[in-house]
């Protein structure tokens, strides 16, 4: 609760928090079907209608209400972004922590492995994952989390290496504290700040990556909507129906803006240097 108050006391946290909150509300409305129209309903006679009082953001090729689909899509995109980032953060943290702690060969092997993953073209990775578990929401989650794991590994490993040499870790060793205790309480707990910031950044990037995957048909499966899919579906209709591109693009930009602002605020709030005592 103190956290929430701190975010809203921070100037960019206030804006970022408000944006993210609005998105969450929109996503919840979408999830509970509180949309102006049925997002899957095809109003044949109203195909490719521009924004109007009955269709706030116009209709798509099928005569479906863009506003309603956007509300659904936000939920879908956020789900993918949230789960993939959570998975990447979790595995990246475990790998980064152990790499930093055990060092030596394990560290070398892990970091080179991460290099391999980073060096791999993402689409090949995605294609592979897709054929193993079939296309869809969870495929995107797995594919995106594989792409982001090395990044989290690096983000964790660097500070963990320096935390490892801090006096309180030495102190813990003189008490004979268990490795697990040291790793979780002394290292991990102090990584919360960089991790939180990275998470908000990764959330933003995951939204874009989901768009890229949908572009290749590997992401969300139609007729479900995600911001990325709506965006890539609309590219060849850009001239006939610019609203099809504009609204999802705006939605993505605004949400990323929100995450970034929130990330900036969290960095300030969680940084002991700038934290108010």
């Amino acid at each position, binding site marked *: 609760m103190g956290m929430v108050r701190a975010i809203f006391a921070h*100037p*960019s946290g206030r804006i970022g928090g408000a944006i993210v909150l609005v998105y969450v509300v929109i996503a919840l409305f979408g999830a509970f079907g509180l949309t102006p129209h049925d997002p899957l309903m095809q109003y044949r006679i109203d195909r490719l209608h521009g924004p109007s009082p009955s269709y706030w953001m116009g209709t798509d090729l099928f005569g479906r209400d863009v506003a309603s689909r956007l509300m659904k899509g936000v939920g879908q995109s956020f789900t993918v972004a949230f789960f993939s980032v959570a998975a990447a953060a979790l595995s990246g943290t475990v790998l980064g922590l152990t790499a930093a702690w055990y060092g030596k060969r394990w560290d*070398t092997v892990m970091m*080179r*492995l991460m*290099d*391999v993953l*980073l*060096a*791999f*073209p993402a*689409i*090949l*990775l995605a*294609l*592979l994952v897709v*054929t*193993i578990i079939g296309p869809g929401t969870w495929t995107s989650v797995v594919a995106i989390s594989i792409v982001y794991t090395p990044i989290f590994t690096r983000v964790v490993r660097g500070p963990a290496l320096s935390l490892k040499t801090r006096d309180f870790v030495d102190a813990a060793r003189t008490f004979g504290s268990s490795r697990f205790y040291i790793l979780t309480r002394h290292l991990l707990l102090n990584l919360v700040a960089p991790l939180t910031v990275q998470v908000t950044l990764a959330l*933003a990037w995951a939204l*874009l990556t989901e*768009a*890229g995957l949908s*572009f290749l048909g590997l992401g969300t499966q139609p007729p479900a909507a995600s911001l990325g899919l709506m*965006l*890539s579906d609309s*590219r060849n209709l*850009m*001239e006939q129906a610019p609203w099809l*591109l504009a609204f999802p*693009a705006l939605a*993505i*930009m605004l*949400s*990323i*803006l929100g995450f*970034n*602002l929130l990330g*900036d605020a969290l*960095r300030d709030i969680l940084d002991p240097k700038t934290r108010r005592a």
Partner: protein
Amino acid sequence: MNYLIRRLAAFPLVLIGVSIVVFIAIRLVPGDAITAMLGTEAGLLTPQQRSSLAAYFGIDQPWPVQYWRWFTGLFSGDLGISVTYGKPVLAVILERFPLTLELALLSMLIALAIGVPAGVFAATRNERPADLGVRVAAMIGQSTPSFVVGLVLIYILSAGFGVLPTMGAFTPLWQDPLQNLGQMILPAVTLGCAFAASVTRVSRSAMLDVLSDDYVRTARAKGAPERSVIWRHALPNALVPVVTLSGIEFGYLLGGAVIVEQIYALPGLGRMVLEAILQRDYALVQGSVLFIALNFMIVNLLVDLAYVALDPRIRLEGR
């Protein structure tokens, strides 16, 4: 020196790892060169026809045999023959690489040329309106998908102004530098946009950290003018994170920028890999992934070396 040799010694191991993963990965994906070539017509082939085509594409042997053949070929610089291009894989890659390198360099140049000054500017006006303006612009730049930027740019230029750099018929730099730059500028700007945005953000926060360091105070105490304090004393110390970011992004770009290459019809590595995958050109996929991985590792190494050049405190041995 020692460090360099040890890092280089790790290359082959990583590359072997990459090669095994890519070899298996691409074969696990359904479809092969035959379905890629014939599409649904592949169903008309008799088993005899199919096996002779498989032999033609070199995919008739068991996987380990195929791998071994390919792997031993590597030592004589033979990455196999691309079935799409009918040429040695290495030749195909090297043909495409200059463009990719040029595009990556250009976008990085644009990103650094815009991002660093913008970041520095914002940092020196911390929390004032100018700073907020730069930050919001950077966030917008970072959050716009590159294909949206590309499509909108093309549309505005062609439909709005009736001008467009030559699409397709790509001219290499050494044939006609002007024509080449004309073709490269839009894609480079498209990529550079998001890149510059991240550079701006990173250099801003690095500068903010550095500006509160003691030696900056020392420089001021010496009577150095503000310009010199910022550019000569502070900036070099803020470059490490900027180099890290640029290195990672540059490394990615050397793997090709699929979407931008696609939109602007540039024959770069990214599209080549995508098409090689779609056409199940196994040798080309393997060769290019290996090549991209090698590039990535070299860039990483260069970044590490750049750290040392930038900051004498950093020692490589422990890293």
